[in-house]
Each structure stands twice: as structure tokens, then as C-alpha cells.
């Protein structure tokens, strides 16, 4: 039998929980979606560890398969005429709008390492964003039954997740300095466009997406129990 000290030392050692971070900067939706699909396939066979994509998209409207497209205010053709891309995708949630100034995160996590509970995963994402916003002095909250992050009655972040076996994809979109007028082309997640807000709007000053990235990453790391989050070159 080992001495007590050695036993105590062995208790401290365990495999590291790693997350890779892929910062794609400003990247088109379609290209990022293909990237996600490839990562999901890799994650399913364990070829890569948990990976988080951080990205900003040029203006794009995405529609999940949850409801009929009654939450589009403009038709896909009208959108394209305005230079806004349109994608119909396999993802939970409803109509969303992405644009520069919005920090979009796609965690490709294997939930077998996170308690096999996708609802808990969603709450974890919300919790992380709430924590990051608190550091800016903004008191945000999750609302039971309404996924996303809310400040009073305004929505500052949207959530829409897909699951293949236990691997997650799609994720969250946090409005940092997004031009809120852009949301008028849809009813975001079935709500009136006026419900959306952004960090810049709440603070009354310009905020760079970069200011929030680090804090969001740190909160995600804490919430999901990662020992290290390492940036890898995209």
C-alpha cells in the first residue's frame, strides 16, 4: 500500500479538460456552417477535443426548421436584394439575424463529458454570458421557458442549439455593438424586432467585440470546467 502522501498526490492528478478555440474573425455563414459540420464529424469520432468557434458574420438571416417562415418579415429574395444572405438550416430556435458587431459562438462539445444533458448545456451557455455581461455592469438573466439572455424585457443574446448524438453545434449570438435596426427584417425567435438590445445600447457607448470576447471565454471556461482553452490557428 502506498503511503498516505502518495495516495493524496495521486488524487490531485487527472486528465486535463481541454477546449480549443477557433477565432474565425469575420467569416460568411455558409463557410462557417461547413466548418461546424466537419468539426462535429471529427468530434463524434474523438478526433478533436471540445472546440469553440468564435466568429462575426456579414448580415445573414437564418431560419430553423421549428416553424413555418412566418417570422420572416422580408422574403428571402427581398433579403438578398438588400445584401443580406439567407439560410434555412437544421437548428433549434427560429428566425435569427447575424451581423457584424455580434459575437457568435458555436461550441462543438461532446456532452458525454458534460453530464449528457443538453438543457443543462443551454443553461450553462446562458450562465456564462450573464457572467460576462456582469463584468460590464449589466445585470442580465435567463428566463425560464425563453432561451437566451435578457436584460429587463430586452433580449441581448439568442440561443439555438443542435445535437447530433451527444455533440452540440450552433450556439449563441451576443449583441455587442450590432446595428439593432437590422433585426427589423425578421421577428427574432418569434418576438418583435424591438425586443433586441445590445451591450453598446445599454452602456450608451461604443463597445468593441474584442472587449467582450475574453470575458465570455473565461466564463465559458469556468462554467464548463475546462482546465485550458487554447487558441488554434483557423
Amino acid at each position, binding site marked *: 500500500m502506498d503511503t498516505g502522501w502518495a495516495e493524496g498526490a495521486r488524487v490531485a492528478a487527472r486528465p486535463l479538460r481541454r477546449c480549443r478555440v477557433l477565432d474565425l474573425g469575420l467569416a460568411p455563414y455558409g463557410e462557417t456552417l461547413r466548418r461546424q459540420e466537419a468539426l462535429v464529424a471529427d468530434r463524434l469520432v474523438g478526433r478533436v477535443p471540445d472546440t469553440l468557434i468564435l466568429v462575426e458574420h456579414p448580415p445573414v438571416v437564418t431560419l430553423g426548421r421549428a416553424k413555418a417562415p412566418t417570422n420572416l418579415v422580408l422574403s428571402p429574395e427581398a433579403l438578398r436584394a438588400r445584401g443580406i444572405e439567407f439560410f434555412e438550416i437544421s437548428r433549434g430556435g427560429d428566425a435569427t439575424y447575424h451581423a457584424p458587431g455580434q459575437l457568435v459562438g458555436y461550441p462543438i462539445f461532446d456532452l458525454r463529458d458534460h453530464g449528457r*444533458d443538453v*438543457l443543462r448545456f443551454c443553461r450553462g451557455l446562458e450562465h456564462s454570458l450573464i457572467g460576462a455581461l456582469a463584468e460590464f455592469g449589466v445585470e442580465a438573466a435567463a428566463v425560464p421557458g425563453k432561451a437566451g439572455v435578457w436584460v429587463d424585457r430586452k433580449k441581448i443574446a439568442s440561443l439555438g442549439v443542435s445535437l447530433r448524438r451527444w455533440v452540440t453545434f450552433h450556439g449563441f449570438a451576443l449583441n455587442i455593438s450590432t446595428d439593432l435596426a437590422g433585426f427589423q427584417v425578421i421577428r427574432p425567435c418569434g418576438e418583435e424586432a424591438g425586443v433586441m438590445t445590445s451591450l453598446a445600447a445599454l452602456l450608451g457607448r461604443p463597445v468593441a467585440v474584442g472587449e467582450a470576447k475574453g470575458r465570455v471565454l473565461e466564463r465559458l471556461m469556468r462554467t464548463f470546467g475546462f482546465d485550458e482553452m487554447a487558441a488554434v490557428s483557423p
Partner: protein
Amino acid sequence: MATRIDMPQLGLTMEAGTVLKWLKAEGEAVEKGQPIVLIQTDKVEYEVESPESGTLLKIVAAEGAELPVGKPMGVLGKPGEDAAALLGSAGATQPAPSSQPQAAQPAPAAPAPAPVRAAGERVKISPVAKKLAQEHGIDFAALAGSGPEGRIVREDVERAIAARQGGPRAARGETATPETIPLTGIRKVIFDRMGQSWREVARVTMFAEADVTALVRLRQAKGAEWERRFGLKPSFSDLIHMAVARTLRAEPRINCRLEGQSVRICREVNLAFAVDLGEGLVAAVIRDADARSLPELARTARELAERARSGRLSPDDMAGATFTVSNLGGLGVEGFTPIVNPPEAGILGVGKIQEKPVVKDGGIHICSMLTLSLVFDHRLIDGAPAAKFLAAVKACLEQPTWAE
């Protein structure tokens, strides 16, 4: 043989899902592992993969239908097989296939306080509970909810049904100290689970006495500082939880659950601890206990105990445990053999810390001694790994460098 495709449970708090889109039509052939139907819950979309190769014999839930977890969406099998037979058991839920997550274990829930709702406020009730209430003619608006945010869940309706069947006294709401305690509600759950555990678990107990003198001194020395830094002073239970959680991570063979015909060695350490409610007890679960710091463990345990006593534990708080710690030291118990909570494989009983004369280094010293009793299910774990684990917990408690 025909197989049912049920609404999967993707999370412990998931109660229902919506069928979004069938990816195969009735009569179409399906390969094992191919996505067969798309479902949604909350803001999550999930492709259900076919558990077998065969033909989609029958679609039971159409696109747009909302179903409780575990209910059938469709039936898969060989052409010509009888699908109806599998669907015959209305109201019974088939155990989920092993690739899918387990449905939440039925767990004792504390009786909820009387509902306080503003007039006209919408009653929060789960779809399953609502259906059950309607089937039994229960006015669910008058019920107290023990689920999250005061939501009425199935257990609350079941309790109301049992109470109604309790007879004229129950109807009159008599609450004098009872001479008989009916086996309903939380008492029934405890009765059933304890009985089942006793009958099925191949119970072996191992004892160890840990010299926790250093731990006692550490807590005395650091108490004030912890209070200042964390806003609370971690208790001995919190320290024991931390030691056990870390040891479970290092000795994962003990951190397992019986699932169907296999033993699943869990990566997550969800530590349950017993909370005495007065009229019963409940095991509250600290999820990912091995990843939490001492103040987090302390805070979480307090919150869970608070919630347990006020009847606000959610299914998440009560299910998914991989190991349990039961500490009766505070009640003066010196040592005892607790009952394993299936489908977990082990439970650690902790007694009170006693000053005892101990022979050490050739002399007699007064040391703070703690009796640990590890009770484990020998069907699932062998003696050697259990002994190793107990020795590791003892060593961890005797050398508390991790608590500094």
C-alpha cells in the same frame, strides 16, 4: 422484433419534446444509425437516429405533435410485423434504449408549501402532470408545485390523487400528529426504494477509522479566514464531500451506475448527500462535485439543503448521482451501515468525530478519529477496488493539503 422509437430524454429537466419533421416515411427502409426523425425541445433540435435497421412501420406522432419524454413517436420493424402490440400499453413508458440518456429516477420529493399565486396568474404545470390531473379530475390550479419556479410536476399530481384517496380525514385536511403514517407520497417512495435496495443489492461493508486531527486543526485555523473570503465557513461535511469527490475522480471504478445489463463507469462525479426533512429524507445531488472548489461545494450544499427543506428541489437536483455520502456524525452516531441508492454502486457512511487514545509512533496520543463505512454493491464492484477506494479516502482526509 418490432422496436418503439420513443421521445428521448436529452436532459434531466426535459419533460416533453415536439416532433418537427419525419425524415423517413411510413413503409420506408431505414439503416441503423440513420437519422429518422427531427425533434425539438426548448431551443434544441435533435436528430433521433434509428436504433435498428428495418422499416418504419408506423408513425404514431405526426409533425407538430408535442409528446412527453418516453412516449412512442413511431415503430420500427420488419414489414408485416405487428406494430400495434408495442403501442398497446397506454400510459406505460418503455425504458429508454441504452444509447439514449436515462429518464430521471423517481426520487422522494418534500411536500411543497401551499401555492401563493396572484389571481389570474398562469399556472405553471408540466404537460405530463396536466394530462394526469385532467385524467383524474384534479383541479391542478389548487396544487402546489415542487418543480422549478413552483412548477407543478407529475409527483405533485400523484400526491394529490393519493391524498384524495386518503378518505374523509385527508379531505378535511386534519394535520394532528398522526398515529399512523400512510405509505403515500414521500414515505411511499422511501419505502419502495429502501425495500428494493435491501432486496437486490449484494451489500458489503468495509470500515476504516481516519485520523482527522490535521483536518480539525486546519478547519479551526482557517475558519475565520474562510468566512472572510467566502462569506461562509465550510463544514466537515463539505470537506468530506471534497475529499470523496476527488477520490472518486482518481478511482473511477467506484464512480459507476448500473444501467440495464451493464455497469457504466461515469466520467462525471455527481455526489449525493442526505438531507433530513423531518418527515422524510431526500438525497440532493451536487453535480460535477470533483470540479468544484471548497466554497462552491459549501455554497451548493447549503442551497440544495435549503431548497430541499422548502420543497423546491428540481428533478435535476435529485437524479443522476454517481455516489452518495451520508453523514450522521451531527446526530451522535459513531458508525453505521447506510443503504446503497440504486443504480449507484456505493455509499459512504460518516460518523461523528471522537477524541480517542491512539497508539502511534510507539506512544499513546489523543487524536480526532472518524469512522468511515463504505457500503458497496458487490454485484457491481469487487472487494479490492472498494478497499483501495476506502483507503484513498482515508488517506485524503488524513493529509488535507488539498483543503489549504
